[in-house]
C-alpha cells in the first residue's frame, strides 16, 4: 500500500485514471516521493537493475530510477519524461517490495474459475492474453502481470494494474484468489499437459519474474521464493488451442 506524494494536478489525474481500481483510502505502508528529475541519456540504453544491501535498495528502469529504505519505508522515485508514476519503474518497485514479503511478480495472466485462480505464465507470444480473452464471465486478474504471494492457507494470485496487450480492460478488477495451478504455456492445435518437477518449474518461472536478476541477494531470494511456491502449487506445461473448451480441459488437471 503506497502513499504517493509530489504529483502535480495533471500527473495526479493521470495516476488516478491509470491505477483507478487499485486506489485505496487505507493508511499507506510505504511512502513514495515522486520527482521528475531524470532525462534520457544518449548512447546505449542501460538495462533495468535492482540492487539491495543493508536495508537500502536501488532500482533503475532508464531513465527513471528509485532508491529507498526498507526500515524507514520510504522511496525516492525519480521519474523521467512522461508519466510521473512511470509504470515500468513502479512495476519494478512493486516487484521488489513483493519479494521482500516472500512473493513474486510474475509475467503471467490469471483467470478465476469457481473461486480459484489459474495462473498462465510464459514469454511474450505464448498465449497469456489469448487465454485471458477466453475467460468469458470468469474474472480476469490481469493478462500480463500477476502478484503471487503466500497466504495463511496457501499461495494466492492477486490482480495488478500492469496490463499487457489486452489493454486497460485487463486491469479493471482488484481481486485475489487462492491458486489452483500454475501453467507454463505453449500454443498448439491440441490440448496437452505435463506435470513439471520442482526444478523444471523453478527454471520455467525464474525468467518470468519481473525483476532484474543481476544481484546475488535478489537472485538468491528469488530462488528460495520460487522453490517455496512450487512446493505447494501444482505446476504444468500446458499446450492449448484457443477455444473455450480449455476450461473443461483444465478441470481434468486436478
Amino acid at each position: 500500500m503506497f502513499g504517493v506524494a509530489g504529483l502535480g494536478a495533471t500527473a495526479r489525474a493521470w495516476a488516478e485514471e491509470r491505477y483507478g481500481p487499485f486506489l485505496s483510502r487505507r493508511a499507506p505502508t510505504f511512502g513514495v516521493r515522486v520527482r521528475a528529475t531524470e532525462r534520457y541519456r544518449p548512447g546505449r540504453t542501460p538495462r533495468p537493475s535492482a540492487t539491495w544491501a543493508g536495508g537500502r535498495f536501488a532500482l533503475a528502469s532508464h531513465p527513471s530510477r528509485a532508491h529507498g529504505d526498507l526500515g524507514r519505508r520510504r522511496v525516492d522515485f525519480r521519474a523521467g519524461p512522461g508519466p510521473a508514476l512511470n509504470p515500468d519503474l513502479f512495476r519494478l518497485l512493486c516487484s521488489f517490495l513483493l519479494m521482500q514479503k516472500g512473493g513474486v511478480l510474475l509475467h503471467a495472466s490469471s483467470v478465476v474459475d469457481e473461486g480459484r485462480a489459474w495462473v498462465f505464465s510464459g514469454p511474450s507470444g505464448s498465449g497469456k492474453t489469448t487465454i485471458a480473452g477466453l475467460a468469458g464471465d470468469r474474472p480476469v486478474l490481469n493478462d500480463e502481470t500477476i502478484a503471487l504471494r503466500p497466504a495463511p492457507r496457501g499461495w494466492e494470485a492477486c490482480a495488478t494494474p500492469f496490463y499487457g496487450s489486452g489493454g486497460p480492460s485487463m486491469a479493471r478488477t482488484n481481486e485475489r484468489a487462492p491458486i489452483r495451478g500454475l501453467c507454463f504455456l505453449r500454443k498448439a492445435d491440441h490440448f496437452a499437459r505435463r506435470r513439471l518437477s520442482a526444478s523444471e518449474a523453478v527454471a520455467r518461472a525464474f525468467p518470468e519474474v519481473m525483476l532484474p536478476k543481476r544481484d546475488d541477494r535478489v537472485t538468491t531470494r528469488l530462488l528460495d521464493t520460487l522453490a517455496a511456491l512450487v512446493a505447494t502449487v501444482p505446476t504444468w506445461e500446458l499446450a492449448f488451442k484457443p477455444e473455450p473448451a480449455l476450461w473443461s480441459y483444465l478441470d481434468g488437471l486436478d
Partner: protein
Amino acid sequence: MDWTDAFPVRKSVPWRTLDTEALVVDVKGGLLYPLNSVGARIWDLCDGARSVDEIVGVLAAEFEAPEPTIRADAIEFLERLADAKLVSIERRRKGESR
C-alpha cells in the same frame, strides 16, 4: 587440462537444490543452469576439499556406471562449469591445505 591434483571449487553464485536436482545462476551472464541429479551431486561435491579423483570415487559408489565412464563424464561436466566460470580449479598436492 591435466586433472591430476585438481580440486574444483564452486564459485560464490546463487544456487539451490530441488529434490535431487539443482539450479545454478550465473548472475553476471544472466543465465540459469538446470543440473540433473548427477550434475547436482557433482556441484555439491565441488567444495574445494575433494579432488577430482575423490569426486569420481563418490559418484562411482552412488551411481551404477563404469568408473571410466563416470570419470570422463564428470571431467567433461567440470570443464563446462569451469568454462562458464561457475567453478575454479585449484591445483595442489593431496593433503596440502588451501
